[in-house]
């Protein structure tokens, strides 16, 4: 059946069985391959996207349940050529090793900063605790999110 939703600010329609996982629609129907399959069990956070402002697992959400909703993926993070402050901060801190977890972590972090522009270290940890990183880049990732939050606040002031 035809399902309509908004992805990265654009209206899209997709032909899919309503039980199709959102991640399969994003990757294979809409060619947005930055959302990563990790476990399919809501345990690792690799597939995290933002649905109506809230970080959610694209691996287990069925496309039928996302009809009419607004989804943001890693491809929607930058503003054209201009990287999002989170992406800039992750690059400045070299906050990653293999980088497979980063799409999901960036989306969890964006959802946090969108609702709380001045998160404490504990807030950031709580927001990212559903995301696993196997390489041990955690300290850099936490620093990068703090740095991005600061940059975004200063950007607003300026």
């Amino acid at each position, binding site marked *: 059946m035809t399902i309509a939703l908004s992805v990265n600010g654009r209206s899209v329609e997709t032909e899919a069985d309503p039980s199709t996982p959102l991640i399969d629609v994003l990757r294979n129907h809409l060619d947005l*391959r930055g959302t990563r399959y990790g476990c399919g069990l809501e345990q690792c956070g690799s597939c995290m996207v933002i649905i109506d402002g809230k970080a959610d697992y694209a691996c287990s959400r069925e496309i039928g349940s996302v009809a009419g909703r607004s989804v943001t993926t890693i491809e929607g993070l930058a503003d054209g050529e201009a*990287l999002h402050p989170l992406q800039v901060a992750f690059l400045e801190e070299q906050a990653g090793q293999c980088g497979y977890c980063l799409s999901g972590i960036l989306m969890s972090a964006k959802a946090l900063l969108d609702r709380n522009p001045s998160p404490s270290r504990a807030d950031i940890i709580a927001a990212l605790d559903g995301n696993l990183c196997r390489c041990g880049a955690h300290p850099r990732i936490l620093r990068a999110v703090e740095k991005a939050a600061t940059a975004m606040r200063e950007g607003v002031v300026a």
Partner: protein
Amino acid sequence: MSDTLPLSIVTNRRLEKWLRFDPDRTLHLAVGKVEIGQGVLIALSQIAAEELDVDIGRVNILAGDTADAPDEGSTSSSQSIEVSGRSVRLVSAELRSRVLTRLAQRLNCSPDELTVEDGSFLLQSQPTGHDYWSFVSDADYAADITGTVLPKAPSAYKVVGQPVPRKDLIAKVSGAAFIHDIVRPDMLHARMLRQPSRDAQLVALDEAAIRRAAKSDIRIVRLENFVAFVGSDETAVQRAAVAALAHAKWEGSRVLTPAHGEAAWYVDQPADDRLIGDPPAETPGEVVSAVYSRPFVAHAAMAPSCGLAEFRDGRMEVWSHTQGVYPLRNSIADILGLSREAVIVRHAHGAGCYGHNGADDAALDAAVIAQQLPDHCIRVQWRREEEFGFEPVSTAHRTRVAAVLDAAGRPVDWTTEVWAGSHVQRPIYGGLFLAQEALPNKPPPAKPGDPPEANGGGGTRNGTPLYDFPAKRIVHHLALRTPVRTSSLRGLGALPNVFAMECFMDELAERAGMDPVAYRLSMLTDPRARYLIENVAARCGWASRWAVGTGRGLGLAWARYKNKAAYACVAVELEVDQEVRLKRVWTCADAGLVINPDGAKNQLAGGIIHAASMTLKEQVTLDGAGITSLDWASYPIMTFSEVPEISTEIVHAPDLPTLGMGECTFGPTAAAIGNAIYHALGVRVRDMPLTRERIAQVLAKV
């Protein structure tokens, strides 16, 4: 510099294998080592940029490609900078020298009067109008590498030693970057039904039920016990693979019990026994010993393994996140009955790789299917449960340490005794792929082996203490069979052995009535090791360490990885209440010349977190037909809320040869945690993982 050529150059003698100046004023550098999350590509690029005096931004690197890049074996054992880095340095220096020698003849000057600035040649600081792009000739590229040109002195380095950012991370923070994202013409998705174990026979497969579950058209490729579900709709083949678990009937699967998952299981197993080091002696003195263990542990990569293969006109092209494109190419060609020239393997980035994981298996899966369905690109992706259930795991490992003590309580005779399965069963060591055992005419079982001692050993890795003990030896019992397939994982035997040995040193210090740091230093003459221990002890406040048993602990340990690579000392501060909570970690490492200090610090910290996760939390459980820890709930790893603050320092030693450092913090972290838990609680927990339950069991016996 050694006067022998690195193996990488011996097998790839022509300059054109490595370097090419492209018309867009870039430098193409081709290497055989691959990016597995460790940041090696920027470090190798820095070395080439340095020796050729080309801006780092001009370097484009191609890594791991049997058609277009040199054969450098596998990317493993922290060897990339030591081996490939040395090769890139020699090759780059030689090309620069050849070209400048020719230019000097042309300009009738001495080569010493010529300098290079971002690829342009200057004579006495004035432009010559020549640069690499205009002047390098085909004859230069075609030349054999002699390895006789002296590279730059480290004191002249401008790019090497700088924290240059990685190029590949840009794609990784903005979307598509991985093998999983490759799209090819005529691509079909595939999922596997895995044979539960080597001797299991598929006696029934309800294909109709599986097709119904798939909800759209799929093909089923079946070759004896090799079964794949293939189609254009990834969702459908995934549904088929999940459904197939209940619609396949196997006979002859192995039967395991939880006891197979304990390191103690190996004690009664037939084994290859050997002695390394000093012969056994009847040394007089008090004998003390203790037994430590680590269970089976998983690589547990963030991504399920993936492989792509297309078979067109008799030629097989494969994409893999393998550690070694050439060894994989050779295996695929041999198994599929193709010539090696007919198979190309290209590396594509996967999730972080810490050893022999499912990458090679997934690539062969794809190639087997592609041979059956030519003219398509077959994209195999494993399921999460398949990744946990079928990747090679690191063997359980039991280490008994025994020492004969002198009157002052110091060892005069030391024995490290190891019981473990094979730590490496890569195909080049005689190991088998999963698909090989499922296809018709499966080869006989692999005989487990281990890397030779010259390569650092496997079960014996780091088993010989570097303290000044008069006599020391390793007794190694390499089990002839393992309950599940085992292979290499970061550090091999180093982590369990260093855990045992460095915890035992704390036990011996206590018996001797000495401070653990002072005790170590009283038997250690290597100045590099002493410096690290003193550095970390000072930074962590060792001098004001508090009494044992307060619930808060500070522990320290060190090792030199493989007894020949990088040195690291680690101190851990933790608290134990309901759980063990790591608070702070300090490390100092000595890896000689460091190419990229930021990348090196990332590796040191990553190694600490990975090792801490393994030490405190990780255990592959076995039962029934195989592995039962099949998801992140049953195989938990360290999370953001559990990660400590980490302070890293690296010794500045640019004149000493580079030593691989990706694994150097691994063993010391495990032992420092063990020692800190003892300091916190006053009890010694010797069997990993050091979970709340394990600690409670030990406390209950006190």
